[in-house]
C-alpha cells in the first residue's frame, strides 16, 4: 500500500517522494504522475523521459506521457538534475496505469531548490474542486 502521507503533490497531478541526503548522496526526489492523472489520460502507450544528467527547472516541460487518445506533459516539480529515468516504464508504459506510485515512477532527480508542494489532503481537496467544475 502506498503511504500517501509520505508523498508530496503538485497541482499538475504529479507526486514527489523526497529522499533525504545521506553520506555521499545528495537529497533526491522521485517523481511520477498520480492515479487520477493516469486515469484521465487512459491507457498509457508511450513515455518520453529526460536522460540522466539533464538539468531541469521547476515548472518546465521535461517529458511526455502519451495515451491512445491524449498527451500529458511532465512538468519538473523541482529545480535540479536528473539522476535516472525509469527505463522499465519506457519498455512497459502500462506500469503508469497499473502502479502509478510504485513501479510506474518516472524520474529521480537531485534537487537544489524545493518549491512549495501540496500535502495529500490538499491534493485531495484540489481534485474535489476539479471534479466539481466538470
Amino acid at each position: 500500500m502506498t503511504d500517501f502521507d509520505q508523498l508530496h503533490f503538485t497541482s499538475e497531478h504529479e507526486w514527489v517522494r523526497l529522499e533525504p541526503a545521506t553520506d555521499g548522496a545528495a537529497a533526491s526526489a522521485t517523481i511520477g504522475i498520480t492515479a487520477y492523472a493516469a486515469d484521465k489520460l487512459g491507457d498509457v502507450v508511450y513515455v518520453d523521459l529526460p536522460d540522466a544528467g539533464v538539468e531541469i527547472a521547476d515548472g518546465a516541460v521535461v517529458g511526455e506521457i502519451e495515451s491512445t487518445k491524449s498527451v500529458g506533459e511532465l512538468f519538473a516539480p523541482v529545480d535540479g538534475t536528473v539522476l535516472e529515468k525509469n527505463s522499465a516504464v519506457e519498455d512497459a508504459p502500462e506500469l503508469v496505469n497499473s502502479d502509478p506510485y510504485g513501479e510506474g515512477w518516472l524520474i529521480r532527480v537531485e534537487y537544489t531548490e524545493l518549491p512549495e508542494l501540496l500535502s495529500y489532503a490538499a491534493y485531495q481537496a484540489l481534485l474535489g474542486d476539479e471534479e466539481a467544475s466538470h
Partner: protein
Amino acid sequence: MAIPFVDRHIGTDAAAQQVMLDTLGYDSVNALVEAAVPTSIHAADLGAASVIPEPATEREVSAELRALASQNTVKRSLIGLGYYDTITPAVIKRNVFENPSWYTAYTPYQPEISQGRLEALINFQTMVAELTGLTTSNASMLDESTAVVEGMLLARRGSKQTSHTFIVDSDALPQTKALLASRAEAVGIDLVELPLADTAPDDLPEAFGLFIQYPGASGRLSDPRLLIEKAHAGGALAVVAADLLALTLIESPGSLGADVAVGTSQRFGVPMGFGGPHAGYMAVRKGLERQLPGRLVGVSVDAAGNRAYRLSLQAREQHIRREKATSNICTAQVLLAIMAGMYAVYHGPDGLKAIATEVNGRAVALASQLRAGGYQLSHESFFDTLTVQAPGRARALAGAASDAGYLLNVVDDDTLTISVDETTTDDDLMQLSMVLEAVPHRTATYSEVPASIPPALSRTTEYLTHPVFNTHRSETSMMRYLKRLSDYDYALDRGMIPLGSCTMKLNAATEMEAVSWPEFAGLHPFAPRDDVTGYLSLIDQLETWLAEVTGYDSVSLQPNAGSQGELAGLLAIRGYHRSRGDLDRTVCLIPSSAHGTNAASAVLAGMKVVVVACDELGNVDVDDLRAKIEANATTLAALMITYPSTHGVYEHDVVDICRLVHEAGGQVYVDGANLNAVLGFARFGEFGGDVSHLNLHKTFCIPHGGGGPGVGPVAARAHLAPFLPGHAFAQKAEHPSIGGGTVVHAGGAVSGAPYGSSSILPISWAYVRMMGSEGLKQATGAAVLAANYVAARLRDHFPVLYAGDNGLVAHECILDLRPLRDATGVTVDDVAKRLIDYGFHAPTMSFPVAGTLMVEPTESEDLAEIDRFIDAMIAIKAEADAVQAGEWPAGDNPLVNAPHTAQSIAVGEWEHPYDRERAVYPVRSLISHKYWPPVRRIDQAYGDRNLFCACPPPEAFA
C-alpha cells in the same frame, strides 16, 4: 417533368419536413433557420446580381460537362516531372474508383467497421516501405511536393543539429523547390541549393537535413551514398524523393542510407487528373515512427484475440496535439492510396518489375534513336527520363511534337526532357523520332539487363513477397478480394454516417461521372493552356460561384486539403501584414474550442498561437478576447474562428468579435468547416471574415474517399487576394474577381499542382450547377432542420450540450453522455460500438468535448433513417438504464461487449446474461437488413504499445 435534382439531393420531402417542423414548433424551414441564425449576419439578397445560374437537370449538367470536356485536348504527355500517364486496371477503376462502398466511406476512426480499407491501406504501407527499403510508411501524403516539405520538417524535428539550414538538390522537381522555398521561409529554415550529383561530400555545408531527388528531375541517376554518409556524420537527416516504379529496378533509398523517403504513388494506376488527387507517400527508418506526419495504420487485436487493424499513434496528430503536432495535415489521400496499393496487389512484384523494365527499355531505345540522330544527351544513367540537348531549338521541337500529339518538357531554349511511361508504345517512339528527325528503329525486346542503370545502383533486395501481392493475379480473384474488403466496411451505401463536423452527405452519381472521363483524368498538370481550356472555364466558374456564396472576392482552388487551405489563408494574412511592413504581426488568436488543425496550421505559417477562452455555452469569451487583443496589441496577426462554432452553435456575437479584431489591426480567418450550416443564409465575407477555407469534401459533395481526397479552397476579400497561392506553372496567373475584373494570385504555392486536385472539381461544379442558389439554401435549411429535430427528440434521453438563439442548434448537436457514464458506467465508446450492432456508424466521439457524441444528420438523410437513428439511441439508453438497474452486470452487458460479430454468437457456449438475439438483433428491422462487423472491440493500447504497420505474416491469419 423530371424530379428536380434538389429533391434527389435532399432526403426529407415537404411532408416529412412538416412533421419535423411540428415537433419543433416552427411554420417553415426558413422561419426555423432565421430564428437560429443571428439577425446581424443574415445574407444580403443578391437578386439579379447573382452569378450562379438557375439549376440544371442531371441530364443537362452531364451535357454541359461533356461540352467542357470537349474543350480539353488530351495529348500524349512525356512531360514527366512527377506526373506520368498510367494504365488504371479496369477491375480497380470499376470496383474501387467508381464504387461508393469505397469512395463514400469516412476516415477509419471507428476501426471495427473499417477493416476493409484499413487492410487496403496496410497493403499500401507495406508496398511503400518495402520499395523504399525503410521500416514504416504512413497511409499517404497529399502529394509529392508537400511530402518533401513534411520531410524537411521531420528532419528538423528528428535531427540533433542546431543549424537552420536544409540542403536542396538542384535536380529536384521545380514545383517541389518552389514549395520548399515558400514553406521554409515561413518557419525560419534557410535553404541551400546545390547540384548534389556533382557536389563532393566534403563541400556539404552544416545542415539539419539534406534533400535528394532520386532519380533527378533531369532523369539523371547518381549514387547518393557518400553524400548521405557525410550528412549523417554532421548530424543531418537524409530525405530522398524516389520514384516507386524506378525502385523496382534501382537500389532503395533505405539501402542507400536515407532516413526518410517521400514521393508519389500516382503512376501506380492513378490518372494524372490535371494534377490530382493522387497519394503522396512518406516512409521512415526505425526510430523515426513517432515523428511521422499524417495517418498510420497498425495491427492490433480485438476482444476475441483476433488480429485487427486500426489507426496507430494518433496522439501525434493535430486533433490531439494541436500546435505541437507533427503536422497540420489530417485528410490524407486514402482512396488514391488504396488504388495504388491495389495496383501492386494486382501486378505483383514480377508484374511491376516487368512494367518498369519496359519503361526503362523504351527510354534506352529512345536514347539510342536520339543519339543516332545526332542529339547529345546530358546523362548516361537514367530510368525513364532523358535530358536532350537541342541548342536553340528546344521550343521549336516541342512545338512540332505538340502538333504531332506529344507533350515534351521544355527546360530552357536549349534543353528538353522526355519521360517514358507505362503507356508509351513502340509506335510512339517511332512518331517521336520522326518529329525530332532522329533515326527510328524498332527494338525487339526489352528483356536484357537495362544498360542505363549503373551496376552499383541495380536493385538487389526483394520486395512485395507477402502473399497478398502474389495471389490476386486473375481478375476474378482481384474482383472478389475487392468485394471482400468493401463488405467489411460501413460506408454511406449502407446507411447514415452522422459524424458531426464531417458532413457526410450525398455524393451524387451524376456529380461523380465526369471524374473518370479521359478529358478530365488524362491531362498533365503542366499541359499548355490551349489544351486545357475546358478545365480553366470550369475552374473560373467554380471560383466565382464559391466567392459569391461566401461573400468574398476571389478564390484559389489550389489547396488539396482543408489543412492546406488553412495554411494558404494564414500565409495570405502573413503576406499582407509583411507587405505593409508589419513584420511583428505574428500572433494568431484561436478559441479553445477550435479544431486542432487551426493551431497546427498557424505554427506552420510562422505564427504564435494564443488561446482564447470559451464560456460555458461554448462561445468565445468576449472579455477574454478583449484581454488577449490588448495584451498583443502590436503583434496581433489574426483570429481564427469557426462559424458556426465547433460546438455546432451560431455564435451571437460574431460580428462584434470580428470588429474587435479589425480595430486592433488583425485579420479574421473564418474556418469554413461548418459552412453547410450557413450556406444561403449568411456569408462569411459580409459579417467580418477576411479569408476562409472551405471543405469541398464536406459542403460541396466531394466524397470523403475513406479519408481523402479533400479539396480545401481558400477564399479571400480583395485586399488579401494578391497573397493567395500562385504557381510557377499555372496556365494563367489571373483569377476572376467578384464584380468583374481579375486578380493575380502571387503568394507561395501550397500544392504541387497549380489547381490542386483538379480532376474532382467537376463534382462540386455539378453540385452547384444542379442546385442553384435556392437549392443550396434549401439544403442548408434541411440540414439545420434535421439537426434540431434530432436534438429535440433526444433531449429527454441525453442532455444536448450547447444551443444558440431560441434554444436552437446549427447543423449538428452534441449529446452529453457523461451523466450516463457517471450513473451507469457506460461510456461514450460503449454507445458508439453498440450503435454498430444497431446498424449505424457512430457520430463524432469526444470532439469537441470529451465524453460526448456530436451528431450531424445532413440534409441528405430521409426522415425514416433519421428516426431509425433516434430510435436506436433511445433503445441504447434503455439498455444503459437496465445496467444501472442491476439487470445486467456492469462488466457483462450488450454495451460493454459491443460490437457483436457473427462468430461471437455462434462459437462456444453462450454465457452472457442477455440472449443472442438481443446481442445482434436488438431491433426487428435488422433481421432483414443487417451489417455484420468483421471484428469485435479493438484493443487500442495494444496496437500502440506493439507498433506494427505492415501486412502481418500469413500465420497471423490462422
